[in-house]
């Protein structure tokens, strides 16, 4: 099942996007939903911090796991930094990199159009398809 939602360029869109993910995945194991919601929160934050545009979240929930896309129409794209421990920021994609099974960036085909960051996470115990 696919769930999609647009969010405005406002900091309140971060908790709303996270809660949207939680509601979309209701019934799945709490720890799994928590990880997905955490990663959605990071990508929504990145979209607002770097894209500074509205963004949308697309959640493809299958029997064996989820694939999530967060798209903005900013010009930045995702850059994973390696902050030292005293750096306050730059850890959003570090979280996604650590928790997702796979993740990546699809830069806009046309400059200034949609940048998408996606990740996938298999349900614990699910047979992996590929």
């Amino acid at each position: 099942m696919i769930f999609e939602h647009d969010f405005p360029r406002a900091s309140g869109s971060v908790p709303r996007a996270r809660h949207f993910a939680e509601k979309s995945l209701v019934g799945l194991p709490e720890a799994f939903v928590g990880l997905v919601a955490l990663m959605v929160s990071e990508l929504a934050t990145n979209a607002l911090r770097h894209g500074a545009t509205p963004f949308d979240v697309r959640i493809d929930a299958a029997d064996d796991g989820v694939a999530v896309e967060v798209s903005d129409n900013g010009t930045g794209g995702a850059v994973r930094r390696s902050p030292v421990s005293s750096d306050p920021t730059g850890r959003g994609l570090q979280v996604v990199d650590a928790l997702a099974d796979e993740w990546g960036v699809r830069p806009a085909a046309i400059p200034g159009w949609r940048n998408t960051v996606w990740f996938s996470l298999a349900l614990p115990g699910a047979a992996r398809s590929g």
Partner: protein
Amino acid sequence: MAELGEGGVTANLEMTEGGAPCIAIAGELDFSNAEGVRTVVDEALANDPEELVFDLEKLSFMDSSGIAVLVHASNHARVLLRRPTPIVLRVIEVTGLTGTFTVAE
């Protein structure tokens, strides 16, 4: 006491019996309210304490925006995290900051 932002977080600064400032954060800490919590942290750091305690028992969610606030605090004082919830511990662990904070029950 500060009521902060859309996701719903409160940050309550008190002095502990030992004299270290303690900030009890409850709710969900993210980009929408981290700035407000940081203001409370700066208030706690104003007297240049050696240690700053965070009581996280009621913090049900935190992402890297919350990590940024804790790292900011740890750049100015020793940071003790009391009773962090599993998701908060997970975020600290995956950002490689386990050694940056002291965690206590």
